[in-house]
C-alpha cells in the first residue's frame, strides 16, 4: 500500500504553531531544526487523522489537557542503557578519574528522556565506588518520559542489548546486580535512583540551576538550529565548574558554538570535553 507523504506543513501554519506554543504554554520551538520538527508534527497530525497543522493548533489552544501528551509525541525519546559503549568507556577511563578526589559529584543529565542514561551513570558510579558522593539531576521537557524514568522498568526484549552494552563497558561486571526480569519487564534496582532527582525543565527557555562537575547532553542538540545550539551549549558550559566534563552525542558538533573555546577535548571521537580552568 502506498502511504501518503506525511501531511505537508506550510511555513504559515508552522509559524502559528510556534506562536501558540510560545504564548499559551511557554514552549519555544523557534530554534528547532525545521526538517525533523515538520516531520514529527506531520506524524502527530497523521496519527490523529487531522486535516492539517491548523487543526492541531486549534486542538492545542482549546484542550490544555492534551499538552502533556503532545509534548510526549513531539519529543524524540530514543535512548538505551550505555548507548555508544565506547563513549562510556572513555568517560570512565579518561574523563572521570581527575574528579575522583572531589568530596561531591554533581551530575546533570539534560534531556534525560526515559532514564536509561541516568541508570547508566548510576551503574558506572556504583562500579567505581563514587555513587555515595554523587547527586544526579535528570531533566526533560516531557513529563511522561520522566514518569517512565522514575519507574526504571523497561520491556524485557531490551535485556539482550542492555546486557551486551553493559558487558562492553564492564567486562567483569555482574549485570544481574542492577537489573532483574520480573513479569515481562526488566526492572532496575531502586537503589540506583536513590541519589537521583528527576525534574521537568526546559533548557531552551528556563534558567539553569546550579553548577555541576559533569553534564551529559546527548542527542538533544541535533534538534536545534545552529544559533540555538550556540545558546544552549553556552548555558551548559556556564553550569560547569572549571575542570568539569561535558559529554554530547557522538555525531554532535560544537562547530557552531562560541562556548567551545572554553572547552578542551578529552576524547574528540567520543565528544567528551573538559571546561578550561
Amino acid at each position: 500500500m502506498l502511504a501518503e507523504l506525511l501531511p505537508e506543513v506550510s511555513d504559515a501554519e508552522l509559524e502559528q504553531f510556534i506562536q501558540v506554543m510560545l504564548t499559551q504554554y511557554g514552549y519555544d520551538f523557534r530554534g528547532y531544526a525545521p526538517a525533523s520538527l515538520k516531520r514529527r508534527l506531520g506524524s502527530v497530525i497523521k496519527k490523529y487523522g487531522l486535516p492539517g497543522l491548523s487543526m492541531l493548533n486549534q486542538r492545542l489552544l482549546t484542550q490544555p489537557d492534551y499538552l502533556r501528551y503532545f509534548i510526549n509525541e513531539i519529543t524524540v525519546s530514543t535512548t538505551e542503557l550505555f548507548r555508544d559503549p565506547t563513549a562510556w568507556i572513555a568517560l570512565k577511563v579518561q574523563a572521570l578519574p581527575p574528579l575522583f578526589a572531589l568530596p561531591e559529584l554533581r551530575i546533570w543529565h539534560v534531556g534525560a528522556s526515559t532514564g536509561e542514561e541516568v541508570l547508566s551513570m548510576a551503574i558506572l558510579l556504583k562500579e567505581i565506588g563514587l555513587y555515595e558522593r554523587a547527586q544526579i539531576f535528570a531533566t526533560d521537557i516531557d513529563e511522561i518520559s520522566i514518569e517512565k524514568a522514575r519507574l526504571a522498568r523497561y520491556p524485557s526484549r531490551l535485556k539482550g542489548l542492555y546486557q551486551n552494552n553493559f558487558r562492553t563497558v564492564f567486562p567483569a561486571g555482574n549485570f544481574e546486580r542492577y537489573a532483574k526480569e520480573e513479569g515481562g519487564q526488566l526492572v532496575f534496582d531502586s537503589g540506583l535512583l536513590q541519589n537521583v532527582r528527576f525534574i521537568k525543565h526546559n533548557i531552551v527557555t528556563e534558567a539553569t540551576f546550579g553548577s555541576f562537575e559533569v553534564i551529559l547532553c546527548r542527542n538533544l542538540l541535533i534538534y536545534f538550529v545552529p544559533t540555538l545550539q550556540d545558546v544552549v551549549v553556552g548555558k551548559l558550559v556556564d553550569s560547569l565548574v572549571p575542570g568539569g566534563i561535558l559529554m554530547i552525542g557522538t555525531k554532535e558538533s560544537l562547530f557552531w558554538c562560541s562556548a567551545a573555546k572554553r572547552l578542551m577535548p578529552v576524547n574528540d571521537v567520543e565528544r567528551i570535553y573538559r571546561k578550561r580552568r
Partner: protein
Amino acid sequence: MRGHTGDVFLWLIGGSAGSFNPIRRALHQITYMPDVAIVLCLHRLRSPRLGMAEALGKLHGWEVLEPDDKTPIRGGQIYVAPADYHLLVEAEGYLSLSVEEPVHFSRPSIDVLLESVVQARWRRAAAALFSGANKDGAQGMYWMHKAGYFTAVQDPADAEIDTMPAAALALFEPDVKFRAEDFPKVLMQALTL
C-alpha cells in the same frame, strides 16, 4: 561559502543489501564536480561507527565524510549517512541528524532523507535507488518524482536483490531504469537537465 539551496546540485543515492559494491564502482568512475554533492544513504549494521567512508576508498578529488549534525552542504563532497541516525537535508543548506524511530526498520531511512529534500524544496536534486531487501526508499523516490526531481531506479533484473527497486517501480515510472554499470552516465545525465 557555498551551502545554499541554490548552487549545489544534490545527488541522493539509496540502497541496501547488494548495493554497496555497484555504488562504490560507479563512484570510482565519476569525475570530480565542485558543484555537486552526493549523499549516500545505505542501510548498514548498527554498530560500526567508522568504516563505510573508508571502504569507499579514495575517490578522484571527492572528499568522503560521515557528516556530523549541522554539517554545511558543500559541492565536491560525498556524505555518507552515519549508522543509527536519520539524515535530513535542511533548506538552510546543512545536514541534520535525528534518532527518531526507524522507518521500515531502517535508521538511516532513505524515505526520511528523500522526504526532507522534497520538504526543503532544494532547487536542484536527483535521486537513485539501488538493490535492497526491503521497501525503504520506494515512497521517497515516488515523492521526489512527484515533486519534479529526476529519478533513477536500478533495473530489478540487474539488482542483486530486487525487492527495493521493484517496490519503487510498483509506485511510479522513473526517468531512468538503469543497469549498475551505466550509473555513471545516468549521474551525468541528470546534471544536464
